[in-house]
């Protein structure tokens, strides 16, 4: 289980997280929604210890990771997989080497096992036979799916997805949603997904949390969120310009 308690984070004068509390249940998919620039990526980076809060706690299975040293943090991170918003593929390596990276780093697999695993992971994200291409030769959506393959390569217990379907066509969006749901179910994963796509949110989310002005203002099952009368949530789901979410 992941718990964030009273997390504050500012960049210079800009307050991004302002006493945020969130509980993410084990074995479920939690979707985090909120306006662009609202701090969703920042929140995700706190969960995996890439950013340290100015104050507050981040508990992973009861351990406060803000207090750990590098070596202890690495042990915790081995439980995680993460898809970055811009995929963050290593551009000096081929696609195949990218997906193989976590396998080479943390397993004793033989080369042919690695090759098979990489091919299988790429196949499930709909990218058969692109192993030898360089990331720069791929489209944005393809890069994202390679990032996805890399994130789940080690079959981690917890996977963080930063906008897995943004920039994909509707068919691919559905395929990636299916993939997330399938892997989640078959390996009993804890998934945290950031998404803007209202359809995807309700399709994959078992819990939905709304981030607004540095706090989680609502967290609940899809039905609860869908029927919520909170004006922020109503505006977000309806996509209207009028409302408490200011455009600038």
């Amino acid at each position, binding site marked *: 289980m992941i718990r964030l308690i009273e997390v504050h984070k500012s960049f210079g004068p800009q307050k991004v997280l302002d006493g945020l509390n969130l509980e993410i249940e084990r074995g479920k998919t939690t979707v985090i929604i909120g306006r662009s620039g609202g701090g969703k990526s920042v929140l995700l*980076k706190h969960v*995996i*210890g*890439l950013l340290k809060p100015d104050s507050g706690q981040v508990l992973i299975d009861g351990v406060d990771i803000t207090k750990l040293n*590098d070596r202890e943090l*690495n*042990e915790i*991170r*081995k439980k*995680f997989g*993460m898809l*970055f918003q*811009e995929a*963050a*593929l*290593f*551009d*000096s390596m081929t696609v195949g080497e990218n997906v193989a*990276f*976590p396998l080479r*780093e*943390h397993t004793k697999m033989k080369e042919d096992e690695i090759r098979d695993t990489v091919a299988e992971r790429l196949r499930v994200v709909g990218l058969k036979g692109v192993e030898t291409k360089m990331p720069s030769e791929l489209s944005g959506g393809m890069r994202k799916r390679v990032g996805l393959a890399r994130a789940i390569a080690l079959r981690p217990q917890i996977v963080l997805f930063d906008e897995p379907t943004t920039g994909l066509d509707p068919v691919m969006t559905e395929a990636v949603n299916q993939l997330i749901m399938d892997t989640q179910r078959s390996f009993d994963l804890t998934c945290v997904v950031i998404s803007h796509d209202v359809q995807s949110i309700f399709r994959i989310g078992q819990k939905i949390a709304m981030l607004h002005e540095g706090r989680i203002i609502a967290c609940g099952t899809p039905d609860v969120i869908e029927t919520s009368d909170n004006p922020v949530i109503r505006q977000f789901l309806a996509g209207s310009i009028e409302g408490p979410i200011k455009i600038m």
Partner: protein
Amino acid sequence: MKNFITALDLLGKTMMRGMEEAGSIAVLFVSVVAWSVRPPFRLKDIVKQMEFVGVRSIFLVVLTGTFIGMVMALQGYHGFRMFGAESLVGSTVALGMTRELGPVITALMITGRCGSAMAAELGTMRVTEQIDALYVMAANPVKHLIVPRMIAAIIMVPMLTVVSDFVGIVGGYFVGVHLLHINSGVFMANITKLVDLNDIYNGLVKAAVFGLILSLIGCYKGFNTKGGAEGVGRATTESVVLSSVAILVSDYFLTALMF
């Protein structure tokens, strides 16, 4: 008075920033040393960097080394001729190359070619979150990115210096003997008489230190890049300037220690 205090304030701040930066570079160096002795050793990464730093710089080093040797012969000839000591041209070129110009010119060329590339590569990896991705996959960026680059530079800059020393002397010979008609026997005899193996060794030790400096600074600047493409550009420029200055300053102190 007020201006004076402002100036002093500015000077103080600049110095503090410089000290701070020197401190962080030292911290990075310590962690590089710690990670470089910890297995597993990634030979493939090191070889790849050695190819980049070494093999692909040979042409550049040959070209610059030759011309430095040639111009030294030319200058030396005009100087020594005034008191009839043309015979010393050969040994001047050889001593100058092995002790000073071989290592320094090579290091400066490699700073421009490879130190800057290290800063740009690591800087790009920083701003595109590839370094974060390494952290997330519980892989240490110092071990993966910086250790191979530094090992490669510390090995390859001395190797290239050997090349530079050699072609410099050949260039000097060509100018001295073929263009300025110094007797070839005299040219060579003075080299073997006056140049000691120690001169070459010390030059190579310098080169190894320069390789360390340029790769450490290049990696440091890249690793700490902030702010998009502009930040990468800044990191690259700063790494070249700082490395060049550090190489020339440390050259003085190394020389004072060695000779």
